[in-house]
């Protein structure tokens, strides 16, 4: 075990992946000499060479599309998209090729790409640097979509993603890159699988489901709620496609109340899918309608407005109060 930041934990995971399999390649903009704008690939080009840690031209479709060709040839490319909002030029290749080639070819062609995306807000950035586009990818069959929330998961999940024969969209909570934690760099039979959710705080009254950057906020909210006598169970989804519904269902059958929170906008999002699926499968266990605490359905706002947009501890608690039928911001309003 050693203490390291989330960013460093991904770095060490990528290092292990490069050591373990000569077919693993890293590709992206500024990932070589510079070590990435967030330094996630710091030192890797120096140690593994420019042929395995490749600085690419500035073209996201080019990065993803050439990675597809490399995968055809048996490689396991790990692509870095510099910021969430820059992924769209590569969107076509991800949706029309990466996601579908295994299906298209009846399983003959594997697409073991890992596409790393620093995502989410809270760093006071300019436009296109704070987005949460994960729902677009979770909506697309053929892709796995995951997000880590802590250094340990960051390390093990990036290694699992690289080793996975399916394409994995790997969303990294950029405002938590500098969070420190203990990391065990051994993967054993006890290591949770990449598509399992984790209960990160146990509770009996409300199930609070989240992932990525908001896991820390949700844990703080659970502590604050307990001060008021409300017991909140926090689930870190870790995988957004597929979702570990068994874990969420078991929790909701116990608590009878569900709140989902994410930075991404609400409409058609991950929260909607969870609310619909859980309502169907746990209808007779529910004490209240599921609540969502999300970014508003607006383009990501300017830095000075982002604290209004991003779900925070108080907005989560307000939703907890709603499902608990306690006094809340909407008390007295219908619907």
């Amino acid at each position, binding site marked *: 075990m050693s203490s390291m930041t989330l960013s460093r934990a991904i770095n060490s995971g990528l290092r292990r992946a490069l050591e373990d399999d000569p077919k693993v*390649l890293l590709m992206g903009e500024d990932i070589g000499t510079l070590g990435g704008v967030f330094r996630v690939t710091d030192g890797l080009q120096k140690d593994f060479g420019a*042929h395995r840690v490749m600085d*690419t*031209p500035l*073209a996201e*479709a*080019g990065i*993803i*599309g*050439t*990675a*597809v*060709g*490399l*995968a*055809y*040839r*048996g*490689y396991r*490319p790990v692509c870095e998209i510099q910021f969430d909002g820059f992924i769209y*030029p590569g969107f*076509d*290749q991800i949706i*029309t*090729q990466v996601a*579908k080639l*295994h*299906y*298209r*070819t*009846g*399983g*003959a*062609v*594997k697409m073991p790409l890992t596409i790393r995306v620093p995502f989410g807000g809270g760093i006071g950035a300019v436009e296109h640097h704070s987005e949460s586009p994960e729902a677009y990818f979770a909506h697309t*069959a*053929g892709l*796995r979509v995951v997000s880590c929330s802590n250094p340990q998961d960051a390390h093990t999940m990036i290694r699992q993603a690289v080793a*996975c*024969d*399916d394409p994995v969209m790997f969303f990294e909570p950029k405002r938590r890159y500098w969070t420190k934690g203990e990391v065990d760099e051994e993967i054993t039979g006890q290591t949770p699988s990449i*598509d399992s959710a984790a209960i990160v705080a146990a509770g009996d009254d409300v199930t609070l489901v989240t992932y990525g950057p908001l896991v820390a906020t949700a844990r703080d909210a659970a502590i604050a709620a307990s001060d008021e006598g409300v017991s909140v169970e926090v689930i870190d989804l870790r995988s957004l*496609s*597929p*979702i*570990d*519904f*068994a874990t969420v269902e078991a929790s909701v059958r116990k608590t009878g109340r569900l709140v989902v929170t994410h930075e991404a906008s609400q409409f058609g999002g991950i929260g909607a899918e969870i609310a619909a699926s859980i309502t169907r499968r746990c209808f007779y266990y529910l004490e209240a309608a599921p609540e969502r605490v999300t970014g508003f359905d607006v383009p990501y706002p300017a830095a000075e407005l982002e604290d209004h947009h991003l779900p925070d501890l108080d907005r989560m608690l307000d939703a907890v109060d709603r499902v608990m039928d306690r006094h809340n911001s909407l008390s007295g309003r219908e619907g």
Partner: protein
Amino acid sequence: MSTHDSSSADDGGLVQLLLPDGERIADAGYDKWVADVDDDQLKSLYEDMVVVRRIDTEATALQRQGELGLWPPLIGQEAAQIGSGRTLRQDDFVFASYRENGVAYCRGVEYTDLLRVWRGHTHSGWNPYDINMAPSQVIIGSQTLHATGYALGCQQDGVDTVAISYFGDGATSQGDPNEAMVFAASFQAPVIFFCQNNQWAISEPVGLQARAPIASRAPGFGIPSMRVDGNDVLAVMAATRIALDRARSGNGPTYIEAVTYRMGPHTTSDDPSRYVDVLEREGWQAKDPISRLEAYLQSRGLLTDEFTGRVNATADDVAAKVREGCLGLEPPEPLSVFDHVYSEPTSWLERQKDEYVQYLQTFEGGQ
């Protein structure tokens, strides 16, 4: 290397070894690349072109008879596809669009595998690794990047295998082929960009995509290019060999513009009478790739009745196999809709499948 190699586009010149009337003309730069093509090989190229045109005719008929949902005819482009396809090694890898049935034929595809996609049974007619050719690409130009990436892999592996990407004049307007050229040039990838300029992207004439010869773009990316008569099987063969040799010897990518003509519709759903000028089409008819080689064979005394009779019999035999194979294709099992989305089924998809199985069981004779 020929002086035409990267400058032909600039002067608008077209590499030609066989004139439309079948006359063989000398070209100091290109002749040596087809110097080994003897009489038997010429006859073999002729047979290939006749057979793929016959497959094309049969498939079009099958579509008209309701046996195929769609078919993208290659008629007119036989020389471009056979001339290039026959120069490739088996270990080279092809990333084509959806019209390269002639190239697939050269790769040794099973006839029925050519039809599965168009009968609606699958998205890929063959296992790409069986013939080293990716499935038909429908997203225009997307495959140029895949070829470039594959070529990077060959480079990393230290082998002299080459990736070749086929695309049309319409694709040159897309971003992917342009990004592919950037990547290929930067990394000196062993890849060939083979553009079949067939003059039409459905109803849009090439002038809408390009105001200058398409081949003239590549040098701006640092990629040498050639502009060849795409209806001249020998010129296409020579150009492709030049490109293959460059790639195999570690000297990077090449761009070939094969100037040809789509004599048929874009697909069987298209109606070119709405946009193609009859005189234009007649002009290209006079440059037909098969009749051109036929005239050349005639001039060399190779076009005997025995030979043409044998070729036509082969073509008829292949057509019969195409038809028989098409009609014999088994439709996919309903539940296979859930197969191969992921390398292992996910819990989510398993649940969806289970529910659908139960639903089907509510019908008489259900699964």
